[in-house]
């Protein structure tokens, strides 16, 4: 027999609103469908309901008349969707077969999680704890079917195998949400509990009440109409929010983005992975969209680094209008793993390294951080960078000795060279100058003659009276002199 776990959030709309704005938690809160005093209230927090506010019955004006301290916010579908996706991420962190129901409940194959959590009680506890990490007060339950698991989750219970009927029997009929007509008929029959309904023969009930009646009997017995239908759930981690007022300055915008990033980092952290790329979609006040992608040098979960990347991007290219809506999507990626060697010095921890590289990329530019790579060219001083993985190399014999190396001058610095009988005699340029006291050369270098970047140069090593030893060249085409390196 299969075992299904269910994770759900009672009052999802309220929970999602409180997740997006933690200051709302604990307040008498009502959500309206639209703005204005005539908009109907569609959800209310426990404190608002205690004061008499009833969703579906009252308008905003009526609710405010009932409870003067009521806080009313328009319902935000984007925020609710983000909350449901966060619940899916929580389930996906413990199981691979997951189905998200239309009402926001998430079902998962409890047997698939047994290798991570030994007991079903432990699984329920882990689900609730992880949901709390992403800012949702969820409940979890485990049962033999989705129906049982959902009802168990509402009570925060685990129903052991074989005890489903006993668990369902005392529950009221409203737990399976019957059609009002069917509910009235069953009420007339004296069927008030699920146990009463489960005892009736399904075929006979089907004859009298139709297929819906038979389905109701099967639900009362804890049987599902269909098995769990797993869905692909992994993709970009997305958080969205609609703003009450348009934002036209960067600091408030970053404040809101920080909240979105905070929630994304919490979701990504469930799997111990990082963010490799951010995609920011801004809904503007002029009804247009501003979409931009921010690549990161390495996967990271460091909130400060991610926020700095966003700030730099927004400061470099400010949106053309005020912002009323924003969606931030993060592409998750594994933080590079490294195997430490018993006889090697410990290198940087992969996650710490990723964060460090991302911070350095923000400081210096992404193309200015990495492992140096020689370029396959005859042009001296050419360089490129490759992604730095921090791979620890095997210990090997030291090369030994000390060599004079060339410090590259990028870009080559133009200098004036005065020659005596075709030999360099005096050099003058920015930051250097003097009589030539030692020289070697010339060496002719002709490279990339087949391309636009062709170069034909005569190279000299010149020791000047200022103490420096320079690598200079004369362009054959222009007869101009440059310094492109200093021996040091």
């Amino acid at each position, binding site marked *: 027999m299969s075992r299904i776990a269910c994770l759900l959030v009672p009052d999802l709309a309220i929970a999602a609103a409180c997740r997006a704005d933690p200051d709302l938690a604990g307040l008498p809160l009502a959500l309206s469908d639209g703005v204005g005093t005539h908009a109907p209230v569609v959800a209310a927090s426990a404190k608002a309901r205690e004061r008499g506010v009833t969703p579906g019955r009252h308008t905003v004006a009526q609710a405010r008349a009932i409870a003067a301290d009521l806080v009313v916010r328009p319902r935000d579908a984007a925020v609710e969707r983000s909350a449901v996706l966060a619940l899916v991420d929580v389930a996906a962190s413990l199981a691979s077969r997951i189905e998200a129901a239309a009402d926001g409940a998430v079902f998962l194959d409890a047997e698939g999680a047994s290798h991570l959590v030994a007991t079903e009680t432990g699984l329920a506890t882990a689900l609730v704890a992880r949901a709390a990490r992403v800012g949702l007060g969820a409940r979890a339950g485990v049962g033999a079917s989705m129906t049982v698991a959902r009802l168990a989750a509402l009570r925060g219970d685990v129903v052991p195998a074989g005890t489903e009927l006993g668990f369902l029997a005392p529950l009221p009929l409203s737990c399976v949400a019957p059609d009002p007509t069917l509910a009235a008929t069953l009420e007339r029959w004296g069927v008030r509990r699920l146990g009463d309904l489960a005892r009736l023969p399904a075929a006979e009930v089907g004859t009298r009440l139709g297929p819906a009646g038979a389905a109701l009997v099967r639900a009362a017995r804890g049987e599902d109409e269909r098995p769990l239908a797993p869905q692909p759930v992994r993709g970009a981690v997305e958080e969205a929010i609609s703003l009450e007022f348009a934002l036209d300055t960067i600091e408030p915008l970053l404040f809101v983005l920080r909240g979105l990033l905070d929630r994304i980092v919490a979701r990504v952290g469930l799997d111990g992975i990082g963010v490799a790329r951010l995609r920011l979609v801004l809904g503007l006040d002029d009804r247009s969209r501003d979409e931009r992608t921010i690549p990161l040098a390495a996967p990271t979960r460091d909130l400060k680094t991610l926020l700095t990347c966003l700030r730099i991007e927004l400061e470099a290219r400010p949106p053309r209008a005020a912002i009323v809506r924003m969606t931030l999507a993060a592409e998750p990626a594994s933080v590079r793993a490294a195997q430490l060697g018993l006889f*090697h*010095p410990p*290198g*940087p*921890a992969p996650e*710490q*390294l990723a*964060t*460090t590289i991302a911070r*350095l990329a923000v*400081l*210096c*530019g992404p193309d*200015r*951080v990495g*492992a*140096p*790579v*020689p*370029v396959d060219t005859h042009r*001296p*001083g*050419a*360089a490129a*960078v490759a992604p*730095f*993985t*921090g*791979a*620890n*190399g*095997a*210990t090997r*014999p*030291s*090369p030994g*000795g*000390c*060599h*004079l*190396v*060339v*410090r*590259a001058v*990028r870009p080559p610095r133009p200098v004036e060279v005065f020659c005596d009988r075709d*030999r360099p005699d005096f050099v003058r340029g920015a930051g250097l100058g003097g009589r030539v*006291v*030692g*020289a*070697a*050369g010339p060496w002719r270098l002709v490279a990339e003659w087949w391309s636009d970047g062709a170069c034909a140069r005569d190279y000299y*090593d010149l*020791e000047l009276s*200022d103490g*420096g*030893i320079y690598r200079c060249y004369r362009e054959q085409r222009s007869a101009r002199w440059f310094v492109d*390196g*200093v*021996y*040091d």
Partner: protein
Amino acid sequence: MSAARALLDSLGRPGDIRLGTARPDAITRLPTGLSVLDEALGGGLPRGRITELAGPRSTGRTGLACAIAAHATAKGETIAWIDPADALDPDAAAKAGITLAQTLWVRPRSTEDALRAAEIVLGAGGFGLVVLDTDSTRSGAGRWPRLARAAERTRATLLVVAPRRDAGTFAALGLELTARRVRWSKEPGQLGLLEGVDARIMIARSRIGRPGRTLVVRQACA
């Protein structure tokens, strides 16, 4: 008898430890790979400390830094090379023996950014050697205490390569390349080949040993 004395010196003599005082950690060393220099420094550059390598242009300070970095990568260390002047030539570095895959090359756009980058790299931990190769560190006077603390916390050797020493008392070791002789394959004034440079290194400052010693390192063209 001397072996027993050496053992007591390394482990501590009975009664040496005062209650309530922590025994200072022994300073470990990052060997430079140059036996003359290692012998003069007592094993190499101190880990968790700032070492300054200063000297005028073309005295071989970059070559010496490359030799130290090459030896560190050969021993499996991950290193960082912070290069605000964008002066590192990967081809020359590889010829000097540096394993490029173990080298994080950071090219900040200013000295101030370079000092900040050094602090970030040191803070990450796991880097055995961080080379800060700059033409000037004067703008970073306020950064030295932070860099010294970060290096000490992560046990990394911060090697500052600059024309002159600027870290003051925050540097545990100061090496100065004071004089040199350029070797040409022919007499000066005639066209020939640059063979190398003889660099004279003076231990100008040492908080963990005796300063003042001078030694000569012969550098050949790669």
